[in-house]
């Protein structure tokens, strides 16, 4: 055994003996834990509810029949470096109700213009999912109001786990858009939304990435059937690169140009911040329950305190 080990053992022995001398330690610990369950947990839950209510308010849940009264917001999607694609999208709650897309085709310098058909709207499933997950989290929190008495740390942990699962899902829905294959995108129904109809060599996709509303335009060209090029269909991805290939209705296509434009949606940014704050609140509460003395044996408490003292 080397000297380091000995030193360390001596150290911790010393510390534990110091801590041990305070006799009333155990009952203090119990009191602290009771305080945690009675007071602290509820104060954190209250805080969580406040934050999540704010988040939920941003999503503005539609009341049946009154969807049209929701606020409409216009977003201009563009990029500073290129001007081939410009889009003006109208977001109403969780759906895109109008879209104007201008596309400058590289080779012909001709400008194509598309917009949504009057009768169509495109629901952004990501926003709806995030909203529903937040509401579920709120529902979980709502069933444990101040009058509820938490009896064990395990109970608090279980509740926090359930809430965190919903919050993580909510946040992930916004931060990780669905990855799709190109044929999936081509048959998704989005292509049929436009007037004039979208030509066969152009595909578009809308999604949310973090707090940004994104529009991707793919320009395609048909691969001749006798091509010598190695045909390898691309897998699923959020954003395909030029050169990605796919097959649809016995035709082979290759992506020639990809244009991506985006615009920040301020209230989505708010919700993401709220999600992060509440997730941290949950984790901190779990950590508090975890280190709280009465939960564990006396010995470890000493170890913990020793560690705290050293640190």
């Amino acid at each position: 055994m080397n000297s380091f080990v000995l030193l360390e053992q001596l150290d911790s022995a010393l510390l534990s003996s110091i801590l041990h001398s305070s006799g009333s330690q155990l009952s203090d610990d119990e009191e602290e834990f009771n305080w945690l369950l009675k007071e602290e947990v509820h104060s954190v839950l209250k805080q969580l509810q406040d934050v999540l209510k704010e988040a939920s308010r941003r999503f503005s849940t539609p009341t049946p029949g009154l969807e049209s009264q929701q606020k409409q917001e216009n977003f201009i999607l563009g990029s500073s470096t290129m001007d081939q694609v410009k889009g003006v999208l109208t977001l109403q709650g969780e759906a895109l109700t109008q879209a104007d897309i201008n596309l400058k085709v590289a080779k012909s310098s001709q400008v194509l213009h598309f917009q949504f058909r009057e009768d169509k709207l495109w629901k952004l499933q990501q926003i709806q999912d995030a909203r529903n997950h937040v509401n579920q989290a709120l529902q979980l929190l709502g069933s444990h109001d101040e009058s509820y008495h938490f009896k064990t740390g395990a109970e608090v942990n279980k509740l926090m786990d359930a809430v965190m699962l919903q919050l993580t899902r909510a946040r992930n829905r916004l931060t990780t858009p669905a990855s799709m294959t190109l044929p999936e995108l081509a048959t998704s129904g989005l292509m049929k939304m436009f007037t004039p109809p979208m030509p066969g060599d152009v595909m578009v996709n809308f999604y949310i990435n973090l707090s940004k509303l994104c529009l991707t335009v793919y320009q395609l060209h048909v691969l001749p059937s006798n091509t010598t090029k190695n045909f390898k269909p691309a897998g699923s991805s959020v954003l395909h690169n030029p050169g990605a290939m796919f097959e649809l209705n016995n035709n082979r296509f290759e992506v020639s140009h990809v244009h991506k434009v985006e615009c920040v949606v301020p209230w989505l940014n708010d919700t993401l911040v709220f999600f992060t704050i509440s997730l941290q609140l949950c984790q901190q509460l779990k950590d508090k329950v975890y280190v709280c003395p009465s939960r564990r044996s006396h010995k470890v408490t000493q170890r913990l305190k020793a560690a705290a003292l050293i640190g």
Partner: protein
Amino acid sequence: MSGNNLVLPIVLWGRTAPTHCISSLLVMDDFNTIITGCHDGQICLWDMTPELEICPRAMLFGHTASITCLSKASACSDKQYIVSASENGEMCLWDVNDGRCIEFTKLACAHIGIQFYQFAIGTEREGRLLCNGHYPEILVVDATSLEVLYSLVSKISPDWISSMSIIRSHRTQEDTVVAVSVTGILKVWIITAEVSRMQDMDPVFEEESKPIYCQGCQSISFCTFTQSSLLVICSKYWRVFDAGDYSLLCSVSSDNDQAWTGGEFIAADKVIIWTEDGCSYIYKLPASCLPASEHFRSDVGKTKEGSIPPLVYSIADRSDKQLLICPPVTRFFFGRREPFHKLLIQGDSAGRLSLWGIPDTSPLQPLYTALQVSSTVSLQEAFDKLTPVSAGIIDQLSALPGKEGPIKVTASVYIPSQGRLVCGREDGSIILVPATQTAIVQLLQGEHMLRRGWPPHRTLRGHRNKVTCVLYPYQISPRYDQRSLVSGGVDFSVIVWDIFTGEMKHIFCVHGGEITQLIVPPENCSTRVQHCVCSVASDHSVGLLSLRERKCIMLASRHLFPIQVIKWRPADDYLVVGCSDGSVYVWQMDTGALDRCVMGITAVEILNACDELAPATVDALSHSAVNLKQAMTRRSLAALKNMAQHKLQTLATNLLAADNADKGNLPKYSHNALVVQAMKTNLKDPDMHVLFFDVEAVIIQLLTEEAQRPNPILVSPETLQKSQAGADKGGSFLANKIFKQVKETMKETIKEHLLDEDEEEEEEMRRREEKSKSLSLLEYNLTMDTAKLFMSCLHAWGLNEQLDGICMERLGMLRPHCPISFGLISRGGHMSLMLPTFKLSLATGLKLTLTDIVGKGTYGVSRAVTTQHLLSIISLANTLMGMTNATFVGEHMKKAPIFTKQAKHTADLSSVNLAEKLK
């Protein structure tokens, strides 16, 4: 891999029942089986008698997340299938009789409800599963292949579906699906034979969409008695609707702060409603809700609210209930056949099932009568009732005088090369014990029962509290010292031990929290990192502890969330830490600098990139002590991994497939005959141990050792094969394969020994001597011991007394002293393990003697299990019969054959023979 292996699991559950926090419930139509799913992903099968006695039978493993719903998946009673879905989108089809996994799949979306529906297409009937969940459609899934066929879609305000119900109408022959969305809109789809015939993926749109203003709908159910009303339960009120035009018939709000979670019709005029905290109430419906009454629909259009209908019964929740950590699950089922049970059933977080038989009559004094529980049992109670108690792997070494239960094993690792099991315990000690010997003590009767402190073992003391993880790095990579054993504990320390001398080599105290995991870095890391183990602690820190330098070379801490996964980018010298909130931290190993911290798609991409670069870097047995959930997610459980690759099914298909699968090359055979895997369903549970017997590997090892045994008659693989082949009449393909593998293994050992001979022989001898001396463990023949244990467990004791006598006296087999819990491994690493209480459920009502309980082997459990066991015992017995010492009694049990000069000579000869053959 070489293909189809027959692997049989035997479980040592220990006295503590696994945590089973019930999340969903199902009663089969015949009322013989109850199925429960839990938050940790296991499914428990309970047998129920007509007298409503319940007894847990088996536990099904395979899901890696909380079970969200269960549903039956077949209509006929001769094959009983159920389907289960979990929070992370996994779906599994199980056979209720033997716990076999028939099919499994994983979707991106999580289901919260599944309903079985049978389509009639002409004369054919096809099963479909209608699923709703965290997505805006209802998915229609094939009940046998689990493929998504098409979906029921909403045109008007599509949103998640909270709950749905299938309405079978005898009047119109048109079945409908009625569902309520989270925003409170009622949707109706017509599902008829035409729909089922559709081949394309076209969605089916709703027939009707009507706002019914029921936000937060918990459940919806159809009255099968009158076929004309619907019950919708929301958390603050419940409502009855006309099933024809969906107009509101009555609405009742909860009087206090109770939250309703579900309800059903129990008669034409009565409903049962239950609350989140587990109370239930039976109400008599007002006349306006009863089609038989003249007042039916008399209140339609009137916004009358409040008048609470008369309470018929209130159902007492258990007063003596333990502290629950989450709301219980309540369901109501009624039998369509004799004895027409109407059952309210509740499962709670303590793994307890409670049943209430609902009477048809009303009590005389309604308000004061509480319905008493008919039957209740928890998993732990069932375990406690067992005599003899369910064995744990080292119970005899852990029993404390004056204490009730043995010291719990909290972390363990099995070292196959030494046949030794390392068990860390809750008191901080670590026990080293020969695995087969300790399993024999636990399972079989014999003289060993009288010896104190048997089997020989070694105790390492150093941790001050619970040991949380144990790692034997040499097992994963030979670059580590053969002597080092590493353990982590609740006391924040990581200790390095010399496994041969039992000496404590070093204590690392670098973390500020319990050690949760010990991992071995991959092969291609820098030399400095290669001699480290990676430790993960509950203070969200990761350390690289150098075993060679005896110091911590890097500590990555201050992660905000618990660490979920560790990955490596050896080429870039990066350690990638994935946290539970989805964030990813990239650390430079050399400098300890935080390179990046990312979230979202980038985080996912970084994690995926690590997988692509180095598949299976974190090797199998490195996390044996992690809970099963994690292990299954990573598919790191060695044995399960093998299963996944082998896709072991029933034997018949095995033999057929063998021809196809083995046409190719035969890779080096490196399976272990016995693998002991520690498992826990929940992190808080003590370890239970599963012994995986690989029948083929046992046979190969037996034959290999037989061939190596110094023998007057020259035994070479060829002669072996000849004799055996003669007996087999040409031999099956499988037999050929096995012999090829025996030869391969022999060649390998021969090669190794020839190489070792010159330089290392002496050192080897020295080491061997030292090893045996220092450990003072009995020298024993691991292979024969394994075979003995296995044969004794498999033999059907009590069928033929004469045979039993011969088995015990002449062959040295031992009789089990408790029923042995076998398991069944099915597709994709899914596994069904019998609970120790299974025998009770086989013959409930009868008073069983001990011999009855122990005897008869496992016959009668299920067809698949019987087939596997018969095949194993026949093949193993055949092999043993061909051996020089075809018994487990005698000197040869004491020592494994050692390569003597003579044996080496024999081996040389046979390898020469082989070489000639090859030419």
